[in-house]
């Protein structure tokens, strides 16, 4: 199961990168999101999987595709000149990020707990637990994020509608 979902995610991401047509690339990205949702289910977190599909594929990608369809050009533009320096800098940055991410995962306490035999298997996540964590442990962060989104929304409305 893990291999299937990992392959869906990776192939979706690869297809998105290699595809020249922007809309097809967007659909590949949807496939990658589905793979990630499947991985969440395997990690005993069906709530995250459902939210992933509702928020990312159901809302954000639809809006992105919507905007792309509004624009007339559906093909990627050719670069005017190749930029070797920028290319190598970006490759180095991505490599550093990937290295850091792998190191973080390998150093996490969860991984050590997995190695111990007879350790308690984690319980599946439920919506109730997510709610309690959000409103009890991370209340400040949650409210700040909400406020930030509200500010962004008001800003977008104010920018597009000059005379209300």
């Amino acid at each position, binding site marked *: 199961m893990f291999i299937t979902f990992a392959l869906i995610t990776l192939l979706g991401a690869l297809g998105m990168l290699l595809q020249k047509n922007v809309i097809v690339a967007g659909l590949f990205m949807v496939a990658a999101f589905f793979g990630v949702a499947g991985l969440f289910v395997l990690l005993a977190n*069906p709530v995250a*999987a*459902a939210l992933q599909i509702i928020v990312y*594929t159901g809302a954000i990608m*639809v809006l992105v595709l919507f905007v792309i*369809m509004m624009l007339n050009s559906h093909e990627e533009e050719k670069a005017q000149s190749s930029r070797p320096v920028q290319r190598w800098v970006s490759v180095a940055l991505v490599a550093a990020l990937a290295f850091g991410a792998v190191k973080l995962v390998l150093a996490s306490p969860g991984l050590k707990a997995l190695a111990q035999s007879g350790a308690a298997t984690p319980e599946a*996540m*439920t919506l109730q637990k997510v709610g309690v964590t959000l409103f009890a442990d991370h209340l400040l962060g949650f409210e700040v994020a909400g406020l930030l989104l509200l500010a962004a929304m008001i800003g977008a409305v104010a920018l597009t509608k000059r005379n209300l």
Partner: protein
Amino acid sequence: MDKLASLLHTTPAIAWMVLKVVIVFAGVMSLAAIFTWVERRGSAMIQDRIGPNRAALFGKIRIIGLAQILADGIKMFFKEDLIPAAANRGLFFLAPFLAFVPALLGFAVIPFGKSFVSGGTTYHLSVLDPGNGMGMLYPLAIGGMAVYGVLVAAWSSNNKWSILGGMRSSAAMVSYEIGMSLAVVSIFMTAGGYDPAEIIKAQGHQPWTWNIVRQPLGFIVFFTCMFAETNRLPFDFAEGESEIVAGFNTEFGSMKYSLMALAEYSHMMTASALIATLYFGGWQVPFVKDPSVLLSVACFVVKLVFFAWVFVWIRWTVPRFRYDQLMKLGWKRMLPLSMVNLVFHAWRMSQGH
């Protein structure tokens, strides 16, 4: 079940799972097919016509025109499969499936009957057993995927009418999803759980304790949003026959069109099942405390068919909305209404009833 399973060289669990999947999907698909005919007969009834009553099996057995479904199927199979020259071929092939699969999948989590115990194991009458952790989030997630069928169909046929239909309907679907989700959230709150089995149990068997009585405001919002989600009249902005030819499925013909149409009706079935589960007690039989399994399934099917009929009924009774009216209704009426509903129930719960 054990005997059948050993005959087929599988475990009872797998045999039961396969049986459930076949029953649910075959049932929903055949109901959807029957409703393509019910829609035409119903519209005829409402408009004082007769409707399709001529098709007959072997030219003799007429059964009030029910054979029309078979005749339509055969006709669709033998039509020429046209693909527009400028279409994106791959996506054009994919689009009917993207429309059809989410419409069917949404049904998987809905319990269509009472769970029963046989030989020491409990059998649940829903494809995904209760306690799967997804609960009612699953149909919401899958419902969000339905947009892609319309969007991909619209874009891949490379036709201006199609793209107009696709854009309008995707915008409408995304806007109405918010109001719908808030209405569902207030049900989660009062039921104390988000699993359909818990929601049904919390409603009880008396009709006056069902959510329709407890949350009439939420019901109005959810019901309206379901019409926008299924792209049915009065909100059929994907098709809009009177203004943009046939909208997103202008270029689709033969079996592809047939799949699109079936997807719409399967969506209608899933929507009616959701309405029945969330607001009308699911499989609970009114006034019967402990119904038998068959009775509970029958009661669920009756509710399902009734709401599917309401979809048909409203389509042929209420005139279409204009696009700006639809958006105004979604954002300025439905969203505030469902927020009022949510805050009211939160306040009532905080007062401890």
